[in-house]
């Protein structure tokens, strides 16, 4: 890319004030202080035995990681994160894709439907999670009121292991499917119309058209959305914190919540930093994957 500044412009009165280093300095001051330094410091802290408020800190190298990998809590949280991520991603993509296919056929209403399904994405999640808590509430909840009306027994959705994770995933899909949908709508519109017209002339069925044209041509989009959704799933906090706070007995506690609890409720700084580093490595791997995919999507 050529963005060299022409010489005569550089001599323009006042132009010299726009020294590039001066222009980027404030940005790097803030980002250095609140992003780069903390990230490096986190890695450093993860090698320390240190409870916040205690004077002593001791260098323990990998002890926190040893403790981490030996702890039941960490593996439970990892498994929960995995389960949550897989279901959230698969269902969000599934529904997002189905919605986008359904919407692009209803051309006149496409924009209205998009708004309907994007509404949960734009709404303040913590507040909506409070509403969902009311829906799932054991005594007053809407869901149980409906169950009772049709003669079924009440279920304590958020406080029993068999349903809590399901409820959390459900709400998560509710808030993310519309997000996936928007990408699929864009992906679908990029598929040349002529392909479908040719298929129509050959008398192809809608199912055949989907598997021969739509699905293969949409696969870069699908991969892209999958990675975005995985990053979102790993970063999820609001829904779980508000709906179950990780309960019952840790059944819905994911890594981000475990990190929050260890760091800011038990103040086990070193240990929490270890969790942060693990989470960071996972997200970094996904980000690198995304850059690869993005290149692939753009260059083909």
């Amino acid at each position, binding site marked *: 890319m050529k963005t060299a500044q022409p010489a005569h412009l550089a001599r323009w009165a006042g132009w010299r004030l726009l020294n590039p280093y001066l222009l980027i300095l404030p940005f790097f001051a803030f980002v250095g202080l609140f992003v780069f330094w903390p990230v490096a410091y986190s890695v450093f802290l993860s090698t320390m035995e240190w409870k916040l408020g205690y004077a002593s800190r001791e260098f323990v190298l990998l002890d926190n990681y040893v403790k981490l990998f030996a702890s039941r809590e960490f593996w439970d949280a990892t498994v929960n994160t995995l389960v949550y991520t897989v279901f959230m991603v698969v269902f969000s993509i599934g529904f997002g894709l189905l919605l986008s296919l359904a919407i692009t056929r209803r051309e006149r209403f496409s924009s209205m439907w998009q708004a309907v399904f994007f509404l949960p994405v734009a709404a303040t999640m913590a507040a909506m999670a409070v509403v969902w808590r009311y829906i799932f509430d054991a005594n007053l909840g809407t869901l149980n009121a409906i169950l009772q009306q049709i003669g079924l027994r009440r279920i304590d959705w958020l406080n029993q292991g068999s349903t809590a994770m399901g409820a959390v995933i459900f709400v998560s899909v509710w808030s993310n499917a519309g*997000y996936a949908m928007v990408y699929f709508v864009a992906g679908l519109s990029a598929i040349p119309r002529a392909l479908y017209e040719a298929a129509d002339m050959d008398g192809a069925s809608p199912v055949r058209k989907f598997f021969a044209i739509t699905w293969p041509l949409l696969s870069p989009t699908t991969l892209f959305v999958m990675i975005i959704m995985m990053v979102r799933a790993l970063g999820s906090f609001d829904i779980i914190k508000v709906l179950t706070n990780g309960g019952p007995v840790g059944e819905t506690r994911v890594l981000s919540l475990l990190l929050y609890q260890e760091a800011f409720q038990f103040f086990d700084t070193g240990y929490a930093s270890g969790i942060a580093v693990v989470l960071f490595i996972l997200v970094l791997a996904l980000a690198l994957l995304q850059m690869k995919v993005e290149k692939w999507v753009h260059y083909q």
Partner: protein
Amino acid sequence: MGSLPVTATSIRRGRRLRFSPGGAVVWLFLVALGVIALFPFALMVGTSLKPIEEIFESGRLLPRHLTFGTYAEVFGHSLLMRYLLNGVIVTVVVLAGQLLVNIPAAYAFGKLSFPGREALFSLVLAALVFPRYIAAVPNFLFLSRLRLINTYAALILPFIGSSLGVFLMRQFFRQVPWEYFDAARLDGCSLSQMLRHVLMPLIRPAIGAFSIFSVVAHWNDFFWPLVVINTSKMLTPPAGIVYFADVEAGTRWNIVMAASVVIIAPLLIAFIAARRQFISSLTTTTLKG
């Protein structure tokens, strides 16, 4: 960026409005999922209009006796009003700071050439992928060292430098040809006139997209206020509503719902008024979830 290609192109395709069984199934599917998507919003509004005796009938969406007393109570509740004020202060100051700090950097990266630019820009890209959790503990320690816990500064300072903002706006600066600057110079523009009348209008779409993202992200942020705030009156709306529901409201769900409506309303109204800009803004800012 701009608007999504879909809505523009697909609308203009010929439409066929004959009945088909497949089409009916698709309609049913859309309506069913639409009901699920909107149900919590309907329940929230419906419950917020119920008197307290009716909240035990949670299977009923609409109130038997309409009341607006819940809203009167919310607007009369000093703590809830404080949350809204905190939310406005934090989102406005964060956005203003972000624009002030990130636009010059975006301009330098997009339009000027200087030694080390590529290396420094790769740092911007790197900062783009750091999840917020990894910086949380050190930032908390740093802010408490500065005695800023429980202040607006703690809610604002960590977000001023935005690699995402620099990244998005740089793309726009790159597309502005030098000839525009030349023309401005020949017309005798001063530097500040050039910035105001040539540059700003050209990058307004990028600023708009970034602003929507920023306001949505910081109005909705729940995690960071939980970390750096420990007195109820300094909470922002999301953490505030959860605190209110957990600690103050008990089973007065109608008041909780009214408060939720009030907290969600500003963004939702903005969303409905500028759907396309919202959707494209929130989807071009992919990595930060």
